[in-house]
């Protein structure tokens, strides 16, 4: 009886600790939204009560006027979307090749994919920046301040890790499926296209979301390779916003909330696929 009571007491304690950590963890996000509904005077005086006086929804209107957020949004969506499409396609094709075929050079390629993750981004930054300048000077083709320049760079960066995620996903699909399909007269391509691709949809979704979220988060290259607001992405926009209106926390918190929301929506809509896809690679290796 006493051990039983001891166990239920410790279980209650553990549950309380869990919930305390959960509350502390989500507090900063709630605080961001809560702050965004205050006027700037209230914020600068320091908010110390948790009751909301009168929601200042106007912050969510003013933020679009003060800084050209609509353009940043469009740029981010375009660049991240195209990157996801390109890198995702490459990852599906190459990931399948690496998962199923033991061809001369496959080991070398796997090794080089993993080793790309070791290279500091800054190591590419200087050469790519100078190469882009050189292309413009030599061929008259602008690369800096262009969508395709950013898409090219992002696609190249996120392809290797995406190949790795896709590869571990394809490995988890049994081989017999293609084998019986080829016996039935399918070509290798048909077996891949008609049988394996539909089955690997969760993996493709997981990989795509991973690419999109990573690109949505990229600041260093966007900061260096874009100087015109026509092509600058949200991270650059936020950083410029902080520089210009560093005391306008009302607008800053509203903008922070707005740029976080799409990511959260995408994430929670696809959470099931995303988590199973990501952990499949991480746990099974």
């Amino acid at each position: 009886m006493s051990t039983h009571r001891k166990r239920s007491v410790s279980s209650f304690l553990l549950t309380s600790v869990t919930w305390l950590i959960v509350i502390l963890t989500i507090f900063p996000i709630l605080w961001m939204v809560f702050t965004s509904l205050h006027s700037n005077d209230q914020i600068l005086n320091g908010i110390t009560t948790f009751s909301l006086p009168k929601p200042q929804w106007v912050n969510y209107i003013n933020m679009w006027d003060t800084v050209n957020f609509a353009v940043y949004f469009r740029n981010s969506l375009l660049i991240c979307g195209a990157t996801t499409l390109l890198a995702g396609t490459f990852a599906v094709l190459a990931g399948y090749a690496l998962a199923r075929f033991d061809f001369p050079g496959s080991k070398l390629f796997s090794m080089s994919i993993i080793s790309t993750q070791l290279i500091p981004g800054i190591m590419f930054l200087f050469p790519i920046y100078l190469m882009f300048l050189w292309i413009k000077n030599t061929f008259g083709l602008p690369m800096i301040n262009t969508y395709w320049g950013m898409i090219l760079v992002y696609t190249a960066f996120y392809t290797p890790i995406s190949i790795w995620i896709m590869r571990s996903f394809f490995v988890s699909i049994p081989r017999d499926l293609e084998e019986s399909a080829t016996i039935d007269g399918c070509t290798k391509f048909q077996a891949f296209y008609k049988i394996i691709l539909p089955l690997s949809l969760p993996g493709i979704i997981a990989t795509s979301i991973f690419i999109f979220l990573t690109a949505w988060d990229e600041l260093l290259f966007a900061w260096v390779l874009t100087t015109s607001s026509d092509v600058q992405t949200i991270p650059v926009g936020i950083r410029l916003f902080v520089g210009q209106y560093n005391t306008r926390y009302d607008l800053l918190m509203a903008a922070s909330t707005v740029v976080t929301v799409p990511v959260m929506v995408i994430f929670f809509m696809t959470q099931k696929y995303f988590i199973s896809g990501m952990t499949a690679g991480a746990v099974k290796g």
Partner: protein
Amino acid sequence: MGLHTEKNLPVKAAASKRAVWRKRVRDNKFAYMLMVPTIIFMLLVHLLPMIQGFWMSFLKLNQFTLGKYLKAPFVGIDNYVGLLFNSDNPVRQGLNFAIRNTAIYAVIVTIGVMVMGLMMAMLLNRDFPGRSIARTAMLLPWVVPSYVVGVLWGFMWQQNGIINYFLVDVLHLYAEKPFWLLGPNTIWAIIIPTIWRGWPFLMVIFLAGLQTIPEDIYEAATIDGAGKLRQFWNMTLPMLKPVIAVQLLFQIINNVYSYNIVSTMFGNGAGYPGEWGDLLMTALTRQSFGYWSFGSGSAASIMLMFAMLMIVGVWYRAFRTELNAQ
């Protein structure tokens, strides 16, 4: 006659080896076709810049020679020597602080996210009311973009901000409200938000890892009289070791190359947190672009890459058995 065949044997073996190799290439035509787009892309936007980066680290590349691109004056290992031994080198400025801070930051963040992630995974692996809500809520920080993390925490760390309100007005931990974005405290102002954003991912990974461990081995251990702590040390940890090994490496790499949080938290977006919070990536980017010193910048990034390779070597030696068992 016998001598003749023996002489030919290695040649024949080599020839047949080559034939087997050619056959394997021919049989895998489809695989190569799938690889072609990726290979072209990686050669152009990975290998080519890397080779250029190596070459640039031996060039005098500054605002005057920038237009010459790869034909800038060749200076041998001067950039490396300058970075290592010449304290007047502009890229070198503040680099010692950045190296020290990055080391502290990477170690504490890596340990922090792993420990917190594992702890939360174990807490959320229990059965309790509202578990699925708790699990989803815990994932939220992971979805917050890192540049928002910098802005948001920079706001919360302010002297009259909410963190000081909790620490001083509610908990009375300090007599006066401390400055978090100035002086030696700065490193914590960076470390804590990074851990906050990083641990949910580790929690997800560890949860998946914990769920692959069969329940009955714990039951058997309990019957044998092993306490919870012994079960954790002798069963849970060893079972998770391959997962821990892989995540440890990814975390170290990510944290050494961390940039976003610092650059949006400090200096109104200018990203200079002072000598107590500057990291390698922010320091190298700022100095190289500030002084148009791309030769030294490239040399510094190559040295950083080799330092990382050494860390990977140590990591591989430490976890060799777990990694090969997979």
